[in-house]
C-alpha cells in the first residue's frame, strides 16, 4: 500500500508544506526549521524507493499509481519510477535539505516566501520525475518554471528581475510547442499515457504520420534542449546562474531537461531521435568546448560556474545521443554526479560570497590561508568536477567518452579536449582564489571558516562524490536495467563492444 502512494505523498507533501510555511510566524527561525525537517522527512521517504526497488523486474515501472483524473480528454494521474527516475527522485530529496542549510542565514528578507517557493519547486521536480502521463508531466514541467523564476527574481543579486524573465521566457515559449506536440499526439492516438504511447507510436516513423511525428519530436526536443541547456539555446543560463541564490543555482540546470530528453524524446521517438542524434552530438561537443573556453576567460566565479555547467551538461547530452549502452549509462550517472558536484561547488561559492561579498576572482586570493577547511572542501569538489579518477565524475565521463567513441569517434575526441580545458580553468581558478598572496580585499576582512551548519551541508556531498566514484555499481544496477532499453535499435550493432566495456566496470 505504501508503495502505491509513496510517490504521491512525496510529491504533494512539499506543496502542503509550502502552505504551512506561509502560515508560520515570520519572525525567528520557524520557516527554516520547518522546511529543513520536512525536507529531511522527504529524503527519508525517498530512500524508501531504492530500498524496495525490485531489481528483478526488467521492464516497466515500480510504485505505480494509475487513476483517472479527467475523463475527457483521457488524462490519468499516472505516476511511477524506474531505474532512471528513482535515483533522480532520491537526488532531489538529497539536495533539498542542503539547500535549506545553505540558505539558513543568507535569506533573511521575505523568508517565508522563499521557503514556500522552494518547497513548491520541490513538488514540481518530483512531479516531473514521476509523471507517466504526458499532461501530468507537462503540468509539473510548467509548474517548475514559476517558482524558479520567482526565486531568481526575488532573491537574485542585482539583475535578478531581468534574469528571471529571461529564464521564464526561454523555458515557457518552447513549452508551448511542446504542448502542441502533445496535443497532436493525443489527437492521433487518444492517449497521453507514456506506455500506451510507446506502443502505439511503434512503426509510425514510416507510416502516414511520419511528418507529424517528426515535427512533434522536434517540438519535444526543443523544449527539453532549452531547459538543459544545449549549446545554442543556453542564453538564459549565465544570467540565471549568476543571479540565482545558491539554493536555486543548485537545481536550476541539467536534471529536468536531461531526464526529459531521455524519457520523453529518446524513449518516445526512438527513430526520430536516432535521426537527429548526429546534430545533437555535434552540438554537445560544441557546447563542451564553448563552455570550457568561455569558462577559461571568466573573472566572475558565478559566471565561470555557469559556463562550466554548460560544458558539463553537454557531456551528458553527448552521452545520451551517442546511443551506446555505455554512453547512456554514463550520461545518466553523470546527471547524478554533475548535480552533486555542482551543488557542492555552488554552495562553496555561496559561502565565499557570504564571507567576502564578491564573486570577482580579481578581488579574491589567498583564501586558503584564512579558511583552510573551506579550501579542503573546495579542492575536493574541484577535483571531482575535473574528473579525477576515484571520484564520481570520472566514472560518468569515462563511460560517456568511451561509449561515444564507438559511434562518433572524432567528436568524442574533441570532447576530450573539453576535459583538459576544464582541468585548466578549474585549477587555475583554485590557484587564483585560494593560493598565492592574499589580496587586499581578503586580508581586510576577518571572516570565520565554515561553521557546523555549512559543514553539515557540504560533507554529505563530498562523501557521495567519493562513494559514487568508488562504488559506482551500486547505483548503476538500476540504471543499467532501464536506460539501455531506451536507446534506439540503431545502437544494437555495438552490443559486443558494449559488453566488453560493461565487463570492465
Amino acid at each position, binding site marked *: 500500500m505504501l508503495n502505491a502512494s509513496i510517490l504521491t505523498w512525496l510529491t504533494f507533501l512539499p506543496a502542503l508544506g509550502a502552505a504551512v510555511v506561509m502560515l508560520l510566524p515570520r519572525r525567528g527561525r520557524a520557516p527554516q526549521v520547518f522546511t529543513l525537517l520536512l525536507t529531511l522527512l522527504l529524503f527519508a521517504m525517498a530512500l524508501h524507493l531504492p530500498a524496495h526497488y525490485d531489481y528483478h523486474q526488467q521492464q516497466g515501472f515500480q510504485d505505480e499509481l494509475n487513476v483517472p483524473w479527467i*475523463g475527457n480528454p483521457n488524462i490519468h494521474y499516472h505516476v511511477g519510477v524506474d531505474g532512471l527516475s528513482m535515483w533522480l527522485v532520491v537526488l532531489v530529496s538529497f539536495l533539498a535539505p542542503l539547500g535549506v542549510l545553505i540558505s539558513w542565514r543568507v535569506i533573511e528578507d521575505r523568508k517565508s516566501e522563499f521557503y514556500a517557493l522552494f518547497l513548491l519547486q520541490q513538488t514540481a521536480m518530483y512531479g516531473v520525475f514521476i509523471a507517466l502521463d504526458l499532461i501530468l508531466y507537462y503540468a509539473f514541467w*510548467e509548474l517548475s518554471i514559476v517558482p524558479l*523564476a520567482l526565486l531568481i527574481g526575488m532573491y537574485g543579486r542585482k539583475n535578478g*528581475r531581468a534574469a528571471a524573465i529571461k529564464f521564464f*521566457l526561454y523555458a515557457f*515559449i518552447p513549452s*508551448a510547442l511542446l*504542448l*502542441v506536440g502533445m496535443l497532436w499526439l493525443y489527437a492521433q492516438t487518444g492517449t497521453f499515457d507514456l506506455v500506451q504511447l510507446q506502443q502505439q507510436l511503434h512503426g509510425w516513423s514510416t507510416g502516414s504520420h511520419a511528418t507529424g511525428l517528426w515535427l512533434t519530436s522536434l517540438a519535444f526536443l526543443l523544449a527539453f534542449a532549452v531547459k538543459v541547456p544545449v549549446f545554442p539555446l543556453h542564453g538564459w543560463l549565465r544570467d540565471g546562474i549568476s543571479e540565482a541564490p545558491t539554493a536555486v543555482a543548485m537545481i536550476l540546470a541539467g536534471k529536468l531537461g536531461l531526464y526529459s530528453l531521455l524519457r520523453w524524446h529518446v524513449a518516445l521517438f526512438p527513430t526520430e531521435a536516432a535521426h537527429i542524434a548526429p546534430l545533437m552530438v555535434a552540438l554537445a561537443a560544441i557546447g563542451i568546448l564553448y563552455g570550457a573556453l568561455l569558462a577559461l576567460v571568466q573573472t566572475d566565479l558565478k559566471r565561470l560556474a555557469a559556463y562550466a555547467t554548460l560544458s558539463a551538461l553537454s557531456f551528458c547530452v553527448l552521452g545520451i545521443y551517442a546511443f551506446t549502452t555505455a554512453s547512456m549509462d554514463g550520461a545518466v550517472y553523470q546527471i547524478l554526479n554533475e548535480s552533486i558536484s555542482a551543488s557542492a561547488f555552488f554552495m562553496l561559492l555561496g559561502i565565499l560570497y557570504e564571507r567576502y561579498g564578491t564573486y570577482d576572482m580579481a578581488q579574491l586570493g589567498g583564501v586558503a590561508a584564512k579558511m583552510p577547511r573551506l579550501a579542503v572542501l573546495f579542492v575536493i569538489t574541484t577535483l571531482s568536477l575535473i574528473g579525477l579518477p576515484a571520484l564520481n565524475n570520472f566514472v560518468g565521463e569515462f563511460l560517456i567518452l568511451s561509449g561515444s567513441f564507438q559511434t562518433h569517434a572524432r567528436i568524442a575526441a574533441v570532447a576530450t579536449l573539453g576535459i583538459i580545458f576544464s582541468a585548466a580553468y578549474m585549477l587555475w581558478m583554485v590557484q587564483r582564489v585560494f593560493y598565492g598572496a592574499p589580496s587586499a580585499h581578503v586580508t581586510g576582512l576577518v571572516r570565520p571558516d565554515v561553521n557546523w551548519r555549512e559543514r553539515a551541508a557540504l560533507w554529505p556531498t563530498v562523501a557521495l562524490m567519493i562513494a559514487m566514484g568508488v562504488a559506482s555499481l551500486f547505483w548503476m544496477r538500476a540504471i543499467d536495467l532501464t536506460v539501455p532499453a531506451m536507446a534506439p535499435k540503431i545502437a544494437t550493432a555495438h552490443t559486443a563492444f558494449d559488453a566488453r566495456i560493461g565487463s570492465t566496470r
Partner: protein
Amino acid sequence: MTEVSPALRILPEILLTVTGVLVMLVESVLGVKTSRKPLGALAIFGTLATLVASVYQLQLPAGTAFFGTVQSDAFSVFFHLVIGGIVLVTLLVSLDYFEGHSSYVGEYYALILFGAVGMMLMTSSVELLMVFISLEISSISTYILAGYRKRSATSPEASIKYFLLGSFATAFFLYGIALCFGATGSTNIYEIAKGVAGGASPLLLTVAFGMMLIGLGFKVSLAPFHVWTPDVYEGAPAPVVGLMSTAPKAAAFAVLLRIAYGAYGTLAHVWMPLIWILAILSMTIGNLGALTQRNVKRMLAYSSIAHAGYLMVAFTALAPMGIAAASFYTAAYAAMNVGAFAILSYLSGFDEKRTNLSDYAGIARRHPVAAAAFAVFLISLIGIPFTAGFFGKFYVFTAALNSGNAWLAVIGLLNSGVAAFYYLRLLAQMYMVTEEQTVAPDNVHARPAFVLGVAILVLAVFALGIFPNRALRLARAGAATFAAQATAAQNISAAVLPR
C-alpha cells in the same frame, strides 16, 4: 415532449429581474445619506437564488418556451452559471467600492442585475429578435456602468467610446439579422438552420453571417474590431471592467456559438476561414499590443483581446468538442480576469491612482495577500498548469488539433508564450522590485465581502485547473444539445412564427 411551464424556462431571469426591481424600489425609500450596502446584499441574494434556479433548470428536459423564443438546455445553464457567478463576485467585490464615491449606488446594483438578465437571455434565446433585445439590455447597462466614475475625466470618455462603437456594432449585427430574415423568412435559429440546410441562398446567408460576425466581433473585441477595448477598459471603473470584459463576452460567445453551430452548421466551410483570420489577428494583435503597454488596465485590455482570439480557435474545431472547449474557456477566463480586475480595484481604489506598471513596484511587500491573489490570477492568465487558464487553453488547442488545425494551435501557443512576458513583467514588478515611494501610502482595507469574492475566484481558478471534470461535463452536455438540435428543429416547427 413533456410540457414544462414556460415560466420555468426563464426562471433565473425572472428572479433576477424581480431582484433588480426590488433594489430600485428599496433604493427610493432609503434616505440620502444611508449606506446602500443592504441593496448590495439584496442583489447578492437575488443572484444566489438565480444560480440555484439555473442549476434547477438542469433537471428540465431541454426545450423551448414562449413560441420558440427561448430555450433552456445544458448549454444555456452553463452560461447562466458563468454569468451568474461573475455577477455574484462583481457584486461582492464592489460592495464597498462605490460607497461614498457615487450617489447612484443603488442604481449600480440594479444596472448590474438588469444587465445580467440581458446576458442570460442572450444565452438562452434561439430567436434572433430575442438575442438582439437582450444584447441591447446588456450593452446599454454596461455603457452606463462604464461611465460611473463621473468626476474623473476618463470615465465618461470611456463610456462614450464604448457606446458609439457598441451601437455601431449593433447596427451591423442587426443588418446581419435582417439579411438572415431575408434569406430564410424567419429569425428563429432552427428555422434558419432549415433554410441553410436547403433552399435559401447561400450568398445572402454568408453575407448575413459576415455582418453578424462583425457585430459580435465588436462586442467581444476581436481584432480588427478591438479599437475601443483599451480605452474603455482604461477609463471604466475596475470592478465594472472585470464584469464587462467577461460576462457580456461570454454571452456574446454563446450567441455566436448558437448562430455558428446552431443555425449555420452546414455552412461551416464558408465561415470557418473568417474565424481563422479573426482568431489569428486577435491573438497576435492582442499580445503584441499588450507588450507595449505601461498601463496595467490597458495591458489587461489587450490581453483580453488575445484571449478572445484563443477562444475563437475553439470555434474552428468540430462541433461538440469545439463548443465544449469554448464554453469551458469562457468560464476559466471569467474566473481569472474578474479576479485580476478585482485586485486592481482594491489596490488602486476608486480614484484609480495605481494603474501604471511602475505603481506596482514592491506591492508584494505592502499587500502580500492581495499580491499573492493577483499572482494566482496572472499565472492563470499565462496558462501555468493547475490553474484554470491552463486547462482552458488546453481544451481549446486540443479541440483545434483534433480537427486538424495544428498550425492554428502552434500560432496560438506561441502567442501564449509571448503573452507570458507581459504578465510576467507585472509579476516581476510586484515581487522583484523594491518599492519606489511614488504612490503615497494608502489605507485600503480589505472588507469581508471583497475577501469573500476574491476567495471564490481563487478557488474557482484552482478548481477549474485541478478538478475540471464537473464543469467540463456540463460544457460537454451543452455542446451535445447542438448535436440534438436537428431533431429539435422538427419538433419546434409547429411553434414558430406563422407565415
